[in-house]
């Protein structure tokens, strides 16, 4: 009975709003934009931070990554035109030093990374040849798709075997089974023993592939001992007109510590140790845990900023609603008088106008939710960005829109109810 009465009031409210369709529509716009922007921006933000966090998580939160980098002064020498052999980077000695002196180190996995063309039959792809130990699989997320990863035996006997990434398989082996084939790098052939999936681990991507804006992982993993014997330590770079050679023992170390807590102190100690033995600044430390924390902090800030934008846009929308409702109350003074004369209590008038504002704001909220879901889909469709629409953002935006209607409807409704029926009836 009461609910039927309430339905009636809602129906009446919708009817009153439909009298001024354009006006009601424009009033709703504020809420529509507010709700839509909240949901859409949160979805885009959530998607971006999810991707970033996934990438960092793949690096391992208990790892410290040490990269060899060419010191800036060597770059200058190269720029002057002299073709020089430069020597820099992490050495095998560093590996044993870290392993022996830093507390909390579980294992250190060295990597040699060589950019080379990888060939099978007539197919050719540029990629990275990564020489590493079997324990690489223990410190880095390696999803084995087929076959096996490198084994200690491979390492011991310097076998010409390799594990290649799925991306590479797709390009090199359109029809063949990679596990029964071998790929050629320079003049040597490597039997494919395994296939791994590494999509999303940007850290491993060839730099050039990145600049093309496409996520590709053309990696082939070979035993470190094999890499050492086949490629040596001198890498010769021939580029148009000049030639440079670099002598780098190891390109990357992945240091796995026993606990995440050990990562923070370990980072300082490794930094200290390497500074002591390296005269040039030819290494950099990447701490995924720290990156993760930074990413989380960034996300938190992002959410705060979004929250404020949402609050402001809904506030503006709410003020728009209040403005229109105040105008409506003035315009419908006589109607209010008539209703009062016909038995409406102040409460009934308040409910009537409140229902109208809530219908406006919830209507706007619903439309906003629809747009808020469509916009991120369009963004991920056209901009190739990951977006995640979270249920709580939809509920929150919708809830706030309803709340806005109530809060900003109370004042106009109470103004309407305050009218004296006699004065209201007298109004022309």
């Amino acid at each position, binding site marked *: *009975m*009461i609910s*039927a*009465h309430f339905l*009636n*009031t809602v129906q*009446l409210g919708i*009817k*009153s709003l*439909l*009298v001024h369709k354009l006006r009601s529509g424009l009033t709703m716009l504020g809420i529509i934009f507010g709700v839509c922007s909240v949901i859409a921006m949160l979805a885009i933000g959530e998607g971006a931070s999810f991707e970033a966090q996934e990438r960092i998580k793949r690096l391992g939160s208990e790892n410290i990554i040490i990269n060899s980098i060419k010191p800036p002064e060597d770059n200058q020498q190269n720029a002057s035109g002299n073709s020089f052999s430069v020597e820099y980077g992490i050495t095998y000695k560093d590996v044993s030093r870290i392993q022996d002196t830093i507390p909390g180190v579980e294992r250190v996995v060295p990597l040699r990374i060589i950019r080379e063309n990888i060939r099978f039959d007539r197919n050719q792809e540029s990629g990275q040849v990564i020489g590493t130990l079997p324990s690489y699989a223990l410190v880095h997320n390696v999803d084995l798709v087929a076959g096996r990863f490198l084994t200690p035996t491979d390492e011991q006997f310097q076998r010409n075997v390799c594990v290649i990434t799925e991306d590479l398989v797709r390009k090199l082996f359109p029809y063949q089974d990679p596990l029964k084939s071998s790929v050629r790098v320079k003049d040597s052939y490597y039997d494919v023993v395994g296939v791994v999936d590494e999509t999303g681990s940007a850290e491993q991507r060839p730099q050039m592939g990145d600049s093309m804006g496409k996520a590709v992982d053309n990696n082939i993993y070979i035993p470190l001992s094999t890499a050492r014997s086949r490629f040596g330590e001198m890498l010769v770079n021939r580029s148009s007109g000049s030639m440079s050679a670099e002598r780098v023992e190891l390109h990357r170390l992945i240091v796995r510590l026993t606990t995440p807590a050990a990562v923070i102190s370990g980072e300082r100690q490794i930094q200290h140790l390497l500074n002591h033995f390296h005269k040039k600044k030819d290494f950099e430390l990447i701490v995924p845990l720290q990156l993760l924390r930074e990413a989380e902090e960034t996300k938190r800030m992002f959410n705060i900023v979004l929250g404020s934008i949402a609050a402001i846009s809904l506030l503006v929308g709410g003020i728009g609603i209040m403005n229109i409702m105040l105008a409506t109350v003035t315009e419908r003074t*006589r*109607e209010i*008088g*008539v*209703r*009062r*004369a*016909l*038995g*409406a*209590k*102040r*409460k*009934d008038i308040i409910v009537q106008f409140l229902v109208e504002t809530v219908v406006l704001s919830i209507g706007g909220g619903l439309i906003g939710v629809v747009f808020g879901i469509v916009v991120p889909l369009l963004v991920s469709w056209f901009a190739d960005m990951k977006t995640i629409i979270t249920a709580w953002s939809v509920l929150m935006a919708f809830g706030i829109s309803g709340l806005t209607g109530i809060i900003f409807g109370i004042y106009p409704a109470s103004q309407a109810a305050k009218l004296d*029926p*006699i004065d209201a*009836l007298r109004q022309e």
Partner: protein
Amino acid sequence: MVGHTQAADCTEVIRIRGVEKVFQVGEVLVQALRGIDLSIRQGEFVAIMGPSGSGKSTLLNILGCLDRPSSGEYFLGGEDVARMDDDVLSSVRGKRLGFIFQSYNLIPQLTVLENIQVPLIYQQEDLEEHRDRCIELGSLVGLSERLDHRPNQLSGGQQQRVAIARSLVNEPLMILADEPTGNLDSQTEIEVLGIINDLNKQGRTIVLVTHDEIVSHYAHRVIHMKDGLIDREVINEAQGVVS
């Protein structure tokens, strides 16, 4: 005196004793009613006349429970309504009174039928339950063909007939009409007054405010007001008192 009071209890719809109304206009106190005594019996047709400023609108507002007297007593159907609070007065209006206004005062966004139903909404009545009766009321005032029209699609006379149907929907004790024909041409005026007169013949109590002599001819009793007091009462012999 005692006998009169007892008789009044059975048939009196309205009993007003010593009603005064004082308004404050800025610094000045204006006495709009200076002690009105008035009884209206069940089935009477009473016209209230008087020049503007005579207090007839103020009296109508008090009779219609839209306003409360500053002092004095007002019994509506035996109930003391002079001191009721706003909410209770609202429900008294909704349950016991029917209003007809000079400017019809229909709600523009509602259809004829919905306009007739408005008083029921505030009595928490189930509209479906009363739907047939509302349609009947519509045909009673000759608008059965136009129940789904909106007020702006109707002529003034038709709008006023909707208002009459609306005033009847809650089975009121009394219908208050404030210059019901003030905005109508003479032809429609006669039609509308005819309907009101018919209602009276069916036993409805009607109180009508007008300053049109012709309108007052329909009433049994014409009350002339002047300076906030009842100046004189004229019994209209031709109409005869129904009691």
